[in-house]
């Protein structure tokens, strides 16, 4: 029985003492890691489309100088909510969806450690998502202070700011519970013989990411709670009129914010580390080194936060420390890139869609890494802070990084989820269209940033027109590519197609490929033995 389609033939799955719910109850009361994984993926894809729509509104307005469609207040709402929805609604839940689907399968566990808490973690996201998206319809519109929600600007926002804070608290709680689940599952429920150093790297990256989440989500909660009390309960944490410190908000926020971006990329590293060896038909190069590099990145991520604050006026010692520490992170990240390429080297590669996305990731994410290195140099950052160069950098690492890896993972594992092979030609179309339009959209933004075009601007000096036009055209193309993905790849592959074997990929290794496709509702009820 497929975990995605609820066929009523129960042939081919283990006998179990209890039935499981059907219809809406199956989903609302889901405790099965595959169902919950599916729910997370559906939720995150919906949020991706909504966040993408907001991005298209932004690029529509920025197509030409002058305000054609939206006033600047609404424009700021778009930029803010695009960021919040993509970070907290699309990217993070998508990786959690992958974690839920794949971690138990990869470590030979029957399910996650805390199945009911898992259900709660997911369903918390829905009211939070509704509040975030619905905030546009509250009086005064959605929050318009940028996704970073700097004080004291946030103290001027309308009631949607409070709704947004509430939504973020809920999302944070969901993440923390999910992380606890992942850590306990990985540490306690691996199949006999699967030592930590035999785990797939995806499990390692999620283990480390989960610790990062538990460490920093409470810090974000602190920052936004202090914003809430400044707004309504007469405190002055950040309100200078009462003796508060706006820069303290930035410190607290970025202490969360920097590990947050690594939270969004480490699972991507894990996905790519599964796919490249499979399609190179060669073991991952330097497994131990990859584990240590991931751990180093996570630890270093705690000591670099103020590189987002080089222009706030910190003392020179601070600037030098954060510059050197930030540059250090390039080292373990480079180690990982080298290891992936060494995995490809002298392999026997084929370039089906998952491999295309992974190699594309490697190429374009590294470009984002280089611009990050350039931004790490404090004097250069002074010129580029709050310009489109930063926008280019983080979209290269988050879209060409995280999102491409998520697509790679979809194409790789979807046969296991749905039981059907996706259409390979259409997958390739999706890849090439996305890669090209992505670069058309974001590469010109490096030039705009070097030329001084500031971020979060609804209108701009006329000299920036051509590159903005190119970026907008690319953006619409990229958006269309994702609509194509939904209607021409995802939906058809759920409904039918060539049947997928248990292991459709010649070079793939791992416990997930030992169970049938689609994966039965219950797997590994008896743990396998790993040699």
């Amino acid at each position, binding site marked *: 029985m497929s975990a995605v389609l609820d066929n009523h033939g129960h042939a081919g799955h283990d006998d179990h003492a209890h039935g499981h719910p059907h219809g809406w109850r199956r989903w609302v009361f889901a405790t099965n890691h595959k169902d919950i994984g599916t729910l997370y993926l559906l939720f995150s894809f919906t949020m991706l489309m909504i966040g993408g729509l907001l991005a298209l509104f932004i690029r529509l307005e920025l197509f030409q*100088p002058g305000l054609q469609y939206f006033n600047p207040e609404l424009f700021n709402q778009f930029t803010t909510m695009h960021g919040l929805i993509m970070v907290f609604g699309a990217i993070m839940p998508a990786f959690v969806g992958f974690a839920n689907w794949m971690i138990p399968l990869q470590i030979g566990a029957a399910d996650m450690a805390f199945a009911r808490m898992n259900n709660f973690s997911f369903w918390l996201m829905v009211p939070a998502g509704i509040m975030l998206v619905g905030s546009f319809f509250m009086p005064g519109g959605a929050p318009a202070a940028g996704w970073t929600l700097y004080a004291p600007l946030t103290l001027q926002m309308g009631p949607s700011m409070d709704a947004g804070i509430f939504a973020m608290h809920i999302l944070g709680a969901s993440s923390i519970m999910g992380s606890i689940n992942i850590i306990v599952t990985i540490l306690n429920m691996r199949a006999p013989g699967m030592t930590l150093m035999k785990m797939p790297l995806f499990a390692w990256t999620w283990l480390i990411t989960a610790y990062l989440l538990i460490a920093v989500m409470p810090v974000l909660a602190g920052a936004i709670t202090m914003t809430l009390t400044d707004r309504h309960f007469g405190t002055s944490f950040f309100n200078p009129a009462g003796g508060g410190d706006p820069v303290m908000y930035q410190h607290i926020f970025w202490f969360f914010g920097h590990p947050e971006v690594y939270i969004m990329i480490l699972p991507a590293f894990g996905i790519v580390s599964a796919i490249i060896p499979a399609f190179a038909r060669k073991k991952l190069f330097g497994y131990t080194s990859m584990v240590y590099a991931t751990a180093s990145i996570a630890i270093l991520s705690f000591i670099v936060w103020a590189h987002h604050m080089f222009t706030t006026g910190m003392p020179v010692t601070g600037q030098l420390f954060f510059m050197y520490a930030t540059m250090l992170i390039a080292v373990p990240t480079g180690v990982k890139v080298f290891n992936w390429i060494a995995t490809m080297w002298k392999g026997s590669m084929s370039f089906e869609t998952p491999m295309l996305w992974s190699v594309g990731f490697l190429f374009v994410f590294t470009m984002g890494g280089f611009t990050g290195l350039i931004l790490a140099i404090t004097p250069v950052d002074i010129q580029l802070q709050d310009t489109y160069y930063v926008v280019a950098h983080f979209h290269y690492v988050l879209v060409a990084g995280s999102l491409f890896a998520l697509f790679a993972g979809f194409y790789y594992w979807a046969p296991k989820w749905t039981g059907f092979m996706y259409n390979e030609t259409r997958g390739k179309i999706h890849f090439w269209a996305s890669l090209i339009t992505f670069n058309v959209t974001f590469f010109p933004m490096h030039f705009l940033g070097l030329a001084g075009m500031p971020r979060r601007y609804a209108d701009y000096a006329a000299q920036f027109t051509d590159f903005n036009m190119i970026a907008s055209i690319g953006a619409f193309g990229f958006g269309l590519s994702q609509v194509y993905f939904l209607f021409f790849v995802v939906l058809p592959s759920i409904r039918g197609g060539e049947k997928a074997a248990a292991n459709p990929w010649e070079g793939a290794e791992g416990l997930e490929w030992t169970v049938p496709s689609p994966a039965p509702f219950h797997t590994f009820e008896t743990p396998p033995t790993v040699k």
Partner: protein
Amino acid sequence: MKMDKQSAGPASLARRSALSRAALGTIGGLVGTLGSSAALASAVKDLPGGPAVNQLNLHPAVTRIASDISNLHIAMLVICLVIFVAVFGVMFYSIFKHRKSLGHKPAQFHESVAVEIAWTVIPFIIVIGMGAMATRSVVAMKDTTNADITIKATGYQWKWGYDYIKGEGEGISFLSTLDYSHRVASNSGKPEAIDNYLLKVDNAMVVPVDKKIRIITTANDVIHAWAVPAFAVKQDAIPGFVRDTWFRAEKIGDYYGQCQELCGKEHAYMPIHVKVVSQEDYAKWVDGEKKKAAAKADDPSKVWQLADLVARGEKVYNANCAACHKADGAGAGPIKALVGSKVVLADDKAQQIAIMLNGAGGGAMPAWKQLSDTEIAAVVTYTKNAWTNKTGQVVQPAEIVAARK
């Protein structure tokens, strides 16, 4: 959940063609606008001291620090490019040669401690080297001692205020606001192709060439940021805090920057214009400003006639209020209309004066206490007698003085 198997039925075909029509329509629309606005884009020329058309690199440097940073950036770019070409050269070679379709068999190696150490240590050295190159500039940018002139730049929602607080020109003080016609052009959706679009202000900051200028930044309400790319200067302007930065401009000319920290709805409309002039021209300008200030020094005890005060108030209104409340006083959305407003038309002036001095709506309407008593009195009088408001009331500056107490 029953799934129907009509992936190729007529309904889905219709859906697909509707989608493609929508897609083509959007692309067609975009291309059409591209054609008609190519005229806009190509008519614009480089702005000296500001952005160049399709500029690819940092601004041409006008200070030594900016030139150091420009060189630093090029050095970083070259290093990154070399590494990029090397690493991806290897990767693309591998992609082309190590393919199953070419019959290449997979090798068996999957670890090497020596190699891991090598590609940890070498990047580490490169990265420390890059940091070392930058350290000198970091330290130099922080040294704001021994400035010739010190100017305080205060960020307001949404303009800059400049106070010359030390050195030649001490005591000069003025606000620098975006030219209102540019704001109107922005709203029109079809701004003319002018070179300084969104960069023109009423009063530029004037400084002498080859002198060390220390800029102290602060803000009145939320965080702003003062930046001039040609000088490689950027410093956050934080309310309740005082930060500083400095520059020594080596070329006479006009240099432009924009607010670089999201500060609310008019964030894109508070540009920075620094005019670097010769020492003699600077002395002349200082002289002129001092004379203007003496003449303008509004005596708050002066008693004004209605017509004069309304005329003065209209100027204040256009410079400060029209951006939100609109030239016709109609406001929009959450911004209150002044024409026909109960507060404005009231006999008791106290509420309107209080709003002017303290703001309203939790900062949505900012406080305007930084305007002079005469300016506030004038603009209140203007709103009470403009458009269809015809109260005939006059608010004298002395009333504002009293209200501030």
